[in-house]
């Protein structure tokens, strides 16, 4: 057993593992979906077993506290990264202004096979948002205003952004460039109950030129086309603030041959019912990220570096930096 372990602990195997890991990293570049996770997981498993065997059998490592701490740290980073890959969750969601976050609307989900799926516990309501823009339509700071459930029946106000996520139960919600306007519409059919809903327009200002969407009233086969004509104060050559509450809009409704322009509060008669343009609203696109290992990875990597520092301290504390053979005769 011991001789087998010793063979597994060979530092030549370490070098082989490192070369394979470098190749795996090269192949994973830009994370193409068609690359197997094994190009990284394989070399990491090899290195982890090699390292584990070395820690058990090599006095070069296990008799030196700092070096031992460093290598155990490397091992724990590998283990944590693996746990992270098995439990992570990554997705996108669009939340309408004055609307609640809805798990059913979550999109582009990728997740580890042991992800605990507790996203339905997250409760927040989107309020307004503002985005600072600089000349050249360069996006600056995003401030998204939320009401977040405190879990005891109350609500807390929070402002989140691109780098200040909302963190609830380990799920992190980051604002993204993907956000825009929405039209709040009420459809009162000739027979039946009126319904109010929000129609999201494409991302703004990215698709400034095509703020359009369509909707088919229930029971109808004919699609109604909408186009939102906006005045947001956008100035390509100056600073400006994207703020839904300050924007002006006209909703252009195209129903076959019929073309109407609605201001907020106006109603149009269409075949089958009445359409009222209630208000201009917005929506925010979030990136959702969950990885329970984040904090532990940070602690483990800091301890790993500390181990390395302790090792070098022990190794070099009695050695000076002097390398000259003769120091007397300097002019």
């Amino acid at each position, binding site marked *: 057993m011991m001789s087998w372990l010793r063979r597994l602990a060979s*530092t*030549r195997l*370490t*070098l082989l593992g*490192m*070369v394979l*890991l*470098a190749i795996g*990293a*090269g192949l*994973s*570049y*830009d*994370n193409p979906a068609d690359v197997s996770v094994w190009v990284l997981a394989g070399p990491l498993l090899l290195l982890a077993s090699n390292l584990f065997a070395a820690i058990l059998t090599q006095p070069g490592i296990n008799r030196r506290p700092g070096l031992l701490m460093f290598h155990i740290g490397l091992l724990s980073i590998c283990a944590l990264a693996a746990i992270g890959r098995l439990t992570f969750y*990554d997705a996108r969601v669009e939340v309408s202004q004055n609307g609640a976050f809805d798990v059913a609307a979550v999109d582009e989900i990728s997740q580890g096979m042991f992800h605990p799926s507790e996203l339905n516990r997250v409760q927040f309501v989107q309020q307004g948002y503002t985005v*600072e823009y*600089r000349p*050249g339509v*360069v*996006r*600056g*700071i*995003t401030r998204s205003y939320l009401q977040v459930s405190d879990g005891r029946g109350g609500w807390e106000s929070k402002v989140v*952004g*691109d*780098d*200040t*996520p909302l963190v609830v139960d380990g799920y*992190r919600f*980051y604002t993204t460039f993907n956000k825009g306007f929405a039209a709040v519409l009420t459809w009162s059919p000739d027979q039946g109950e009126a319904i109010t809903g929000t129609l999201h327009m494409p991302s703004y200002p990215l698709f400034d030129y095509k703020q359009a969407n369509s909707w088919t009233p229930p029971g109808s086969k004919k699609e109604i086309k909408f186009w939102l004509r906006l005045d947001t104060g956008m100035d390509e050559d100056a600073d400006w603030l994207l703020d839904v509450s300050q924007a002006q809009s006209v909703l252009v409704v195209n129903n076959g041959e019929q073309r109407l322009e609605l201001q907020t509060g106006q109603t149009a008669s269409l075949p089958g019912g009445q359409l009222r343009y209630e208000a201009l609203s917005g929506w925010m696109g979030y*990136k959702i*990220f969950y*990885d329970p290992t*984040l904090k532990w*990875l*940070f602690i483990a*990597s*800091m301890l*790993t*570096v500390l181990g*390395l*520092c302790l090792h*070098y301290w022990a190794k*070099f504390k009695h050695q000076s*930096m*002097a*390398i*000259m*053979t*003769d120091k007397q*005769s*300097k*002019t």
Partner: protein
Amino acid sequence: MIGVFTELPWMWAGLFAYAIATLLAFHNVWQVGANSAAAALPSRQGENRILLALVSGVLLLTVALAVRWERLGHGPFVNLFELLMSQLFSLGLIYSVIYWRVPDLRASAVVVMPLIWVLGSWILLMEPVDSRFPPTYHNDWLWAHVGFGKLFLSFCLVAAGLAGVILLRTIPYFARCFAHMTDEALDQLAWRFMMLTLVFDSLMLIAGAVWAQDAWGRYWSWDALETSSFMTWLSIGAGIHVRLTYNIPIRLGALVILAIFFLAFTTYFGAPYYSESAHKGVI
């Protein structure tokens, strides 16, 4: 456009001071080679002059950076022009401190200064374009990431300088110039700096990962820069292990150090500009 010119004269003056430091470094070594005494030592006075020129260069570049910072309202973190300028400053600053505190590695200046000049000549050929500060750069971890990165590259530069001296000693003329040192001692010192390089590279990656988590909602995603910097980190570990496992000849070790420096250098100044997707927050 007028504003752009205000920092340029300071930068040119800084580079001029670096040019003087470079010439003085060669002169000092050349003088040792010309000395008929065996294993003559470089002139201490000459070394002081080199240090003075270096420090002047650093001070002038500090002014250039401050002027630009004031003008644009943000630090030199965004485009290649700024990265080169701030590295010229920080490599010069950290190397000056090491040059001053560790007299025994001063011989490395003949290699270090030309390496710094790779950046110097590059920046002279560049358009001094202004940059815009991306929203994701308003983060304290940026400072830690950049700071550790500067120490990492500077220590790697010193190790490369010492490795360069080891290789120069294979040329008879330079062997005479550096006769007062041994390959073994240079090798020890160079690898000691590689170990510091590993420590600060690790810290740079950790700070970068924390920042990336805040900025882009993921701590690691194998973009061009992340892949390249991971390979650099791994190559330092592999270099240290190769040296331990195979007890490689000193000159081969010096080549390994130079290869790692090359990788670190391309990570810094190649990868972010080679790929559109590098550090996505910039876009």
